[in-house]
């Protein structure tokens, strides 16, 4: 795989060249925070961010997605027939995605694209999407990616990884798709040995800067029921107000709800993000709710991420250590503390 150099001045040119062939999504500053937006002509990318407020998961798994449309006009021959809602899948690039968020996309992928189920829209979006990652020179104090199988320059899920070396970017192609992106973007200059050495040093330096660590080593061998019945859940759940913030800002939460919305005789079948924090999430048609209490819902969220997922997929925890839930929880429930409680039980 090729390893190239992009000068600082050429970065804009690289992005512009990609815009010829791709819809480019990149971090844009809005108020005090950043979000991934489709880059419009003349709009500039702002790479001066740690993590975007919301993860870019909505680009592949929109918060609300119209799946089907239908018509309830009994006089029509097409009454009650579901038709796939028209969608377009442009070749796209997420530029500047952080390694944790790219790892999260791979993690969600096991839910939407596996031998048993293939979600057609997820699969098509993944096929048309390319990922150009930007390593983290300055991880935040709430970043704990290195504890959960990632790192500030982790390569999983990326097509290209960029290293910001100050005067220039070191661009590492990681897939064939990535090779093509660099070629299409007019990136020709090969990296010399010195640049590669600097990139390695930067990576090491960034990893060393991570001072937030969580233990995960004992989670796999714990008994599910022992964790389920652990004495600490009441205490963990007490402050929780049961909003959906943690699940909506989480790059790995993938749960959804399907709803029909009808106006007169026209209807849409819509898929919306759902949250295990909401009582309605598990409400049965009978009226029974197996998770009627807050403590059950809080336990579910952590058990799913740190135990059920671990046991089912054998691929570590369902958390990439981005720190968003830690920063956004209005009552400061800190998943890092829950890691400790569960692992050390």
């Amino acid at each position, binding site marked *: 795989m090729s390893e190239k150099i992009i000068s600082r001045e050429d970065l804009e040119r690289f992005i512009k060249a990609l815009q010829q062939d791709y819809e480019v999504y990149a971090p844009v500053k809005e*108020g*005090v*925070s950043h979000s991934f937006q489709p880059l419009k002509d003349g709009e500039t990318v702002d790479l001066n961010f740690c993590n975007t407020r*919301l993860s870019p998961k909505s680009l592949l798994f929109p918060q609300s997605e119209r799946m089907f449309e239908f018509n309830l006009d009994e006089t029509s021959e097409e009454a009650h027939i579901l038709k796939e809602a028209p969608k377009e899948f442009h070749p796209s690039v997420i530029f500047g995605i952080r390694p944790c968020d790219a790892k999260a996309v791979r993690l969600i992928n096991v839910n939407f694209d596996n031998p048993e189920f293939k979600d057609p829209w997820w699969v098509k979006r993944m096929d048309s999407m390319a990922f150009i990652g930007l390593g983290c020179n300055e991880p935040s104090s709430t970043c704990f990616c290195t504890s959960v199988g990632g790192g500030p320059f982790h390569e999983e899920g990326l097509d290209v990884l960029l290293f910001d070396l100050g005067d220039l970017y070191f661009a590492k192609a990681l897939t064939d798709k990535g090779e093509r992106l660099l070629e299409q973007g007019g990136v020709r200059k090969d990296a010399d040995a010195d640049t590669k050495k600097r990139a390695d040093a930067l990576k090491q330096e960034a990893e060393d800067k991570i001072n937030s660590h969580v233990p995960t080593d004992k989670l796999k061998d714990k008994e599910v029921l022992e964790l389920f019945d652990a004495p600490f859940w009441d205490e963990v759940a*007490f402050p929780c107000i049961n*909003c959906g913030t943690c699940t909506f800002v989480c790059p790995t939460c993938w749960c959804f*709800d399907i709803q029909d919305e009808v106006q007169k005789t026209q209807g849409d079948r819509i898929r919306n993000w759902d949250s295990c924090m*909401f009582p*309605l999430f598990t409400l049965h048609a009978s009226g029974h709710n197996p998770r009627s209490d807050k403590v059950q819902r809080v336990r579910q969220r952590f058990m799913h991420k740190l135990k059920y997922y671990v046991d089912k997929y054998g691929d570590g925890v369902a958390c990439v250590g981005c720190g968003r839930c830690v920063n956004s929880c209005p009552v*400061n429930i800190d998943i890092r503390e829950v890691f400790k409680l569960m692992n050390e039980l």
Partner: protein
Amino acid sequence: MIAYSEKMREIAKKLLKEKAVDLVIGFKKGTLPMMTEPVMIKEPEETGQLCWSSFCSMNLANYLPKRKEKIGIIAKGCDSRNIAVHIVENQIQRDQLYIIGVPCTGMVDRRKIQSLVAGKELREVVESDEELYIKGKDFEQTVKKIDYLQDNCITCMHKNPVIYDEMVGEMVGERKDPDPYDDVKESEAMGSDERWEFFSNLLKDCIRCYACRNACPLCYCPTCFVDESDPQWVGKSIDPTDTMSFHILRAFHCAGRCTDCGACQQACPMDINMRLLTRRLNKDALELYGCEAGLSIEERPPLDTYRPDDYDKFIR
């Protein structure tokens, strides 16, 4: 602040030791700078966790509805007013509570501090009586707390608890005759199209996480109207019509009951100031009924009561 923390620990310890209460609800130090975590303490030896700072912005009255125990609760001015609302609305009984009142000098808005350092990460924030020392990777600064208070604390006229059993400090001076509704007047002065656009824009980032609703002590309905599924009143997507319906209906449900504690705005992960809706209704409640919510445990909220001398004919 430090004196408050020590005093509340002392009171809580005594209450738990003497079994005057079963538990004490307060705040403990957060894991991040400028954060605190609501905590429930049951043992006298755990009362050391209790703390007070200018970042205790959540409203602890939110943790009271339907509890059966005898409860000690830390309450700043707005929390105490919401406790009063709960008592009036039968969510908790007065004799179940031992209210540990905190004279409040206003909560600091952590987002204002964050925007001050323009997105750089704050690694340490140390509070003194009037100042905050803030420190990050390559900066440090000292600022006056009063310049960075939450908006609702700037206009607050009830800093001292309105009901309490014991205070952790001397009462503080209340702000007299400010005009607290400047922001509301701004949107009132707009034409209807302009106002529609203003509120649409205000709510455009909403992700429907319901943090505003859930941080609010007033929102204790067993099933919120947005969670009703049979019939379903409101769509669940992020369609602007549904988002707007949620916010407007929620605000109306708070009319005459809201104490403008600011918990909704502080809880919002998207920085939306939905208080502009509730405050408009607070202004109406004040102008039409002379009512400020939660000042008494005797008086019912204006919209669930009736007076024979009502000035509107249709209701007489």
